[in-house]
């Protein structure tokens, strides 16, 4: 089952992409985007895993213990922060779109107006 984490990441990516493509609501679209981004967390952590390794926190393990890669964990932390900011920014754009056009359906938003 060694491919399972990668399969989960690919599945999350594709299911999120399906949500984005078929979305009829901006909020649904933004949540779908966060699902796509969740796939990157799974992928990063899966790449850095080493069989039998534990978290690289030396508070209660010996220095010689096998640990998983700390870089991917750090990258995942960055990823989470960026995802949260992107989602917040997009949600505030959705609020503006709703106020301006009275709808959240991407197909009915119409042309940009000043």
């Amino acid at each position: 089952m060694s491919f399972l984490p990668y399969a989960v990441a690919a599945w999350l990516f594709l299911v999120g992409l399906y949500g984005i493509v078929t979305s009829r609501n901006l909020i649904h679209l933004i949540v779908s985007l966060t699902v796509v981004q969740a796939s990157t967390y799974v992928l990063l952590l899966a790449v850095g895993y080493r069989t039998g390794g534990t978290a690289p926190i030396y508070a209660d393990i010996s220095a010689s213990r096998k640990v998983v890669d700390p870089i991917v964990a750090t990258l995942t932390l960055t990823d989470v922060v960026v995802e949260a900011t992107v989602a917040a920014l997009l949600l505030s754009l959705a609020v503006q779109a709703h106020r301006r056009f009275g709808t959240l359906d991407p197909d009915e938003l119409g042309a940009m107006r000043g």
Partner: protein
Amino acid sequence: MSRRLRLCVFGVGALGLAALLVWGLAGLPSFGEFDGHYGQLLAHMTVPERKATSSISVTTFDFRGVDTLGEEFILFTAAVGILVLLRIQRVGEDVAAEPARVRRPAADSKTLQSIAAALVAPVLVLGLYIVAHGHLTPGGGFQGGVILMTAFLLIYLAGTHLHMGRARPLDAMEISEALGAAGFALLGIRGILLAGAYLQNFISFGMVGSLLSGGDIPLLNVSVGLEVMGALLVVLGELLDQRLLMRRDSR
């Protein structure tokens, strides 16, 4: 462009994506056998070189500290962007003068209010703990900042039980966000002045496992915690204001 045509264009892109996805997945290291030397090197340098125990915090705030500065400013810029987007609207609606009065508890449920009021203090302590122990155990400024934000959100939910009076917490939060962002950048500049390089540590590393160890990592954690808490609360406050504006419009 019709919906059908758009789906056809997407179909062409999807074929390319599928090819790239299969190619990329085929090239991944098999699960559990990752052999990146850089990560292992950093993990083994954590305790001897920095006297801290969390490799992830040390990587985030020390070995890759400049990257985190950029990350923090992504958060800062996004929060400012959201404020600009949403506040223009509010000024246009001429309600800028009364948000303090409009910002009332979201619900009148007594159960919700009591539970929220009871949770404020423990959540606040947990948030401070997570920020303060970021260099020792899993946690740090980003995680702790989010928990601290939750404490303030609980005060909002507790509503009438913990009345905040005429105080404008949003102003304090803007200051907290700015202080956090500036604090990180200034700690880096202090590194230039005292140790010769940006974000170079200038405090003694202390004893492994003690609260004041790891050099300037705890200070960076505190500034990130302030920034994350401030940014999230400012954004939440603005979005809640929008919600209240909409409710008023529909009346």
